[in-house]
């Protein structure tokens, strides 16, 4: 058991490194939003939670995972690569001309992606359609939807929350990446969503809370059949945006930003990126364009 946890922890570290390397090569991206959900994805895909067969991405009985906060695509791609859906080599093309891997995931291009996301507030409703289809088609799969906490400010989330309860979608699990930050600031500085658990309970959901970086706790939770039958399940995963890099953690600034040279050194050491990897894939950016060549300055305010 412990060795399984070790394996998953090791995988998580690898995935964080991949995320950073992809985004760094692309010249920009949402690092902190991706770091926030690494353990969740690791446990879902490699901790025996999701039922899938990467050789048959359209297998009808597969469980479905939807990354509703699509801006964390850079976390999903290395996971899909390790799960066998896409070639590892592809990761090097992230956000580049000719690639199928964009800043948000495209279900028409990438095997293993169930829904194209990017605009917040769509994934849960899409997942509801999928969970409902299981009922209509008498299939026994489960739908997992990962939401951002800021995303819960979108009304469509609450429309969906009401509907899922009405339809008794017990084959639906929603995970909220509760990192307390949205793009600009803390949620409670913009629009607070506390008490979050009470809200979902009042909307009829079976609510559980967990440390979203605790692999063991996540695994235990996801592999337990939900207690309440006939209810959709909500997992509030307490997370840290930018988890894994000290200067990024819980800093709103890092929603969409690239490290400077000094920060880079800290990051390399904290993520445990080895020299050889660093040499082969992480070349320091050309000062003139600050490595920002491929990705536009997004809403999230890169200032440099």
């Amino acid at each position, binding site marked *: 058991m412990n060795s399984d946890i070790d394996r998953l922890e090791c995988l998580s570290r690898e995935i964080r490194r991949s995320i950073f390397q992809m985004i760094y090569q692309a010249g920009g991206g949402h690092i902190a939003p991706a770091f926030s959900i690494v353990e969740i994805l690791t446990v879902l895909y490699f901790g025996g939670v999701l039922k899938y067969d990467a050789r048959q991405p359209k297998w009808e009985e597969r469980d479905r995972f939807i990354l509703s906060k699509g801006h964390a695509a850079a976390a999903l791609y290395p996971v899909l690569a390790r799960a066998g859906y896409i070639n590892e080599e592809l990761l090097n093309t992230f956000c580049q001309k000719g690639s199928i891997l964009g800043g948000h995931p495209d*279900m*028409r291009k990438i095997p293993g992606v*169930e*829904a*194209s996301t*990017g*605009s917040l*507030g*769509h994934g849960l*409703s*899409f*997942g*509801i*359609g*999928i969970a*409902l*289809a*299981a009922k*209509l*088609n008498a299939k026994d799969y489960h739908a997992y939807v990962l939401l951002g906490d800021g995303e819960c400010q979108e*009304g*469509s989330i609450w*429309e*969906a929350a*009401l*509907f899922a309860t*009405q339809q008794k979608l017990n084959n639906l699990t929603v995970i909220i990446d509760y990192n307390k930050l949205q793009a600009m600031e803390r949620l409670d500085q913009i629009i607070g969503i506390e008490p979050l658990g009470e809200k979902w309970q009042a909307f009829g959901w079976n609510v559980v809370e967990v440390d979203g970086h605790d692999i063991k706790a996540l695994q235990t939770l996801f592999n337990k059949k939900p207690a309440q039958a006939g209810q959709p399940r909500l997992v509030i995963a307490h997370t840290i945006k930018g988890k894994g890099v000290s200067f990024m953690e819980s800093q709103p600034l890092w929603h969409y930003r690239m490290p400077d040279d000094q920060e880079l050194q800290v990051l390399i050491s904290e993520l445990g990126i080895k020299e050889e990897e660093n040499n082969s894939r992480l070349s320091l950016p050309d000062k003139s364009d600050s490595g920002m060549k491929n990705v536009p300055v997004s809403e999230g305010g890169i200032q440099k």
Partner: protein
Amino acid sequence: MRNAYLTALYALAENNPHVVAVVGDNGAIVYDQFRMDFPGQFMNFGISEANMVTACAGLASCGKIPFVYTIAPFLTMRAYEQVRNDVCMQNQNVKLVGTGAGFVYSSLGPTHHGTEDLAVMRVLPNITIFSPASPMEAQKATLAAYAIHGPVYLRLGTNRETEIYKEDYIFEPGKGITLKEGNDLTIIVTGSIARDALEAAEGLDKMGIITRVINIHTIKPLDQEIILRAAIETGAIISLEEHNLIGGLGTAVAEVLMENGANSVCFRRMGLIESFAQGYGNHQDLKEINAVSRKDIIRIAREMFESKISSRLRRF
């Protein structure tokens, strides 16, 4: 058109258990028979159009074929970004069925009118747009929507339209229909106002302006050929629709004419000019108030015909 739609939907549901009738707290009694006979193929999403449209895209991604039925602006505008991102961008097999085309829900006011729907749907990639003119056509369009694998917007009126076709005919998606021949002028029309176009054309005939009437039941893809032929053969075209002047049928016709160098044709769009539909009353009242009644059609047609003649004279 509503009952015609339901008749077709009933037949489809009977033949394919994946067909699902979806409503957004509307349709009341009219779906009773359907619900009774196919309880597992009916779903009411309540008053949450955004969730409804996206969930239907999710359903479609698992092989279901949702026919999503609600009032046109709530479907195509309230849930616009959902239609764009989840239905069209992902090219899902969702049928969007909007009722209350134009301002047939007259006294309910512009919140309930479908007077911008063609413009906003037309700009979306991957979608097919049907805008039938009569009950029979609505029924055929419903079946045609099913036959297409991909997004379709089906624009329906209400249940009061009377039939304009005298006999059965073949509905070909993307092919316009010449309802009436004529070589002096063409009215290109879509939706139930086709009846007004026909009646106006009969009036014009009596005035010696032998008017062709073309019904465009498929707004996208558009039948370029029938339009260009009308341009060449009649030299004057009026487009007519219960829609804002911008972005709908008239604009689509202008695009075709311009890009195909259909040069010497006189052209004029009829529809709502920089406004929502004004006034209250019944459907006919609103046509009059908003200057798209038979009288208005005849007036504009006469002006057009005269300017066509005089421009021809100038040319000689």
